[in-house]
């Protein structure tokens, strides 16, 4: 949102710097095409982001852009508000989710997923062990709830550990990571994604242990 050349306001037809509202007539402007979450939230592309900053920026933007404020305005502004908040919600979800944030950041760094990825053998072994543990759980057994709670706690630790590794990797290779470094990072993302699905799987088992009807 720091372009120097003015754009044409759709409402007063005059020049205005790009941004949320026209500098002259205060009409809501369309979102710039290609603006990603980092830019919308006014942060440098990075993996470690300040949650308090994101939250306050989210609040400030919602309070300017939400459809509730445009319900009594014309059709164009209603549509633009919908477009803006759709993007805002998407960006908010992306930036507050480690996997989505890492994927966005990888794209920023020019990473393209290879057609035939090199398998992560070490991790495959871990996956096998984890799967076996999962299959051994009987959600209808008497001790299922405490057992699942323990497994969830361990799974959450693994998840945290992966996030930490990812944060370090992105921190070290901040400026211009080479191909190998990018492969390494994308593997960490895949691991994180797996651990999260695993946790969801445990959640489902826990739901069933709590209430067999689900």
């Amino acid at each position, binding site marked *: 949102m720091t372009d120097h050349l003015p754009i044409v306001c759709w409402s007063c037809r005059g020049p205005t710097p790009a941004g949320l509202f026209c500098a002259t007539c205060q009409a809501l402007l369309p979102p710039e095409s290609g603006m990603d979450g980092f830019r919308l939230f006014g942060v440098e592309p990075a993996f470690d982001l300040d949650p308090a900053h994101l939250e306050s920026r989210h609040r400030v933007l919602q309070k300017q852009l939400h459809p509730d404020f445009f*319900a009594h305005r014309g059709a164009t502004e209603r549509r633009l508000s919908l477009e803006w908040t759709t993007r805002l919600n998407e960006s908010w979800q992306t930036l507050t989710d480690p996997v989505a944030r890492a994927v966005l950041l990888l794209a920023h760094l020019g990473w393209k997923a290879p057609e035939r990825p090199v398998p992560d053998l070490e991790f495959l072994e871990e996956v096998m062990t984890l799967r076996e543990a999962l299959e051994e759980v009987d959600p209808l057994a008497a001790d299922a709830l405490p057992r699942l709670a323990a497994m969830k706690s361990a799974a959450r630790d693994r998840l945290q550990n992966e996030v930490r590794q990812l944060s370090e990797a992105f921190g070290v290779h901040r400026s211009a990571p080479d191909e190998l470094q990018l492969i390494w990072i994308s593997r960490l993302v895949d691991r994180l994604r797996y651990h999260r699905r695993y946790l969801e799987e445990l959640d489902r088992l826990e739901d069933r242990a709590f209430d067999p009807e689900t």
Partner: protein
Amino acid sequence: MDVLLEIMEPGQSLLPHQTGPMTRKRVVGIDLGTTYSLVAAIGVDGKPLCIPDDTDVCAVPSVVHYGVGSVVLVGQSARERALSHPEATIVSVKRFMGRGLEELRAHLTTIPHGLEAGEGGMVRILAGEASVSPVEVSAEILKVLKKRAEEALGGSLHGAVITVPAYFDDAQRQATKDAARVAGLEVLRLLNEPTAAALAYGLDKGSEGLYAIYDLGGGTFDVSLLKLEKGMFQVMATGGDSALGGDDLDQWIVQRLMTETGTHQPGPGWIQAGRRLAREIKERLTDETMVTFPLPGVDGAARGSLTRAEFEVGIRDLVWRTIPICRRVLKDAGVASGELQGVVLVGGSTRVPLVRRMVAEFFGREPLVDLDPDQVVALGAAHQAEVLAGNEPAEMLLLDVTPLSLGIETMGDLVEKIVPRNSPIPTARAQDFTTFKDGQTAMAIHVVQGERELASQCRSLARFELRGIPSMTAGAARIRVAYQVDADGLLTVSAREETMGVEQSITVKPSYGLTDDEIASMLQEALQHGAEDLRVRLFNEAKVDAERVLAAASAALHEDGDLLNSEEMERVKRAMHTVWEATQGNSADALNDRVQKMDVATRFFAQRRMDRSLQRAMTGRKVDDFA
């Protein structure tokens, strides 16, 4: 100097219509409930109030009676006929909204009406001589509320916020919106009931933190977890069961009455009488530990009895069904119950002592019951209506979520989720698909909603076919299916083939409800003033836009008026004046025409403003330096 020149002086109000006090738009909040419906508006002291009838009663029983000679009764008078004319009197119509025939037959075992398949997969209810859709029945209730509000507020309504259970799916929401249109009501927003309750509660108590809203109504259950912080209400997660409520508790008593009286095939009259008695017994058991009552359909002084303990054993499983849902909502929000600031009870069924006990036990705290659980939803809706109409600034911003995942059917009846549940709305998601056969030129798209893995177990919202895909080898086409959910929680789906630069786009509004034509024809039948309403609406829309154009032009003159000589200035102002004159009339066409003419007449001005701004940019000076 003419009038306009005078009022254009910098620092003064820009246009005549902005100089006077702004006219308040007449808007209301409506709680269209399973058992009762209410309408509320902001009173003179700025606080929302429910609007009562002339006997000072706010709640309108959601009962519609279809009499002979197309006489329609709504509310208390209809309820009085439920016993004498059971087949012709429809209660709890909300349970039919947006539902198909098969589904209803499976769920509703004892109803005194025949059902038949209607248009668009919708059901029709046979009520006496009439065959009516749930949308039409709901519209009758809305018409009564609308009339009551218009009499109380002294004029026609600009619009309404109508509440729906948070767990209502797209078809049920669409049906509710259709009902409002049939009743001639402009829907400012469909608002989720727990969110409306939280709004009323939050504004009343002014407290911040995490709240769970447990809303057990006549026919629906919702639980929402909200974060209230710095003027923002954020729904973190929501869950529920749109077919679970007080009616089900009554139903248990009805079954017991059937057993006790040896009734196997209850007739319509017995069903209505049994249901009414059941509700009465349930309500009395809130304060009493045992009640006795005359048995329906049994002659003489035969009396039955029911203790609260027996009742609680009987309904335990039903009430328990809400608990895993509460648990999942906490989990989805990533919140432990100890972190909650409070648990707020909404809906008449939360008066049942067992409900309160189970909620207290699960959340580990006594729930808050200091607001009237029957009125709080309508009050919150009335408040939000004021904000949406622009009558008052929003003290509190509401951020809501989708209650159920939205997906698409893929091969083998599987569902691919596109928008996961609890996504903040508005939201948009897209997914790419491809063809699986060589030369395939069409693709069937089936939109579903729900958490189940099989499409056949989810709610089917829409089916359509994307045609005109260029003939290619299997897997070469790229079909992008995009889902958009708006601030009402309503879904629009579009699909398009992208590889060959050929654009094929189709937009579907999933609707168990009605087509626009069907609504238009109903409007004609039901409302003599339907056409007039439409004309007023179109004009108001044009006026909002024209006022924006005038305000924008005034701002431009204020900023760059020095670019015009006096003759040009006069020309621009004359064009503005003709637009302003048309805003005082009543023709949308005339107004739009003048706005277009003004656009042409002021184009040179816009061009000069652009040129100057570019010159400034080129000479490297910031626009701000000139301000």
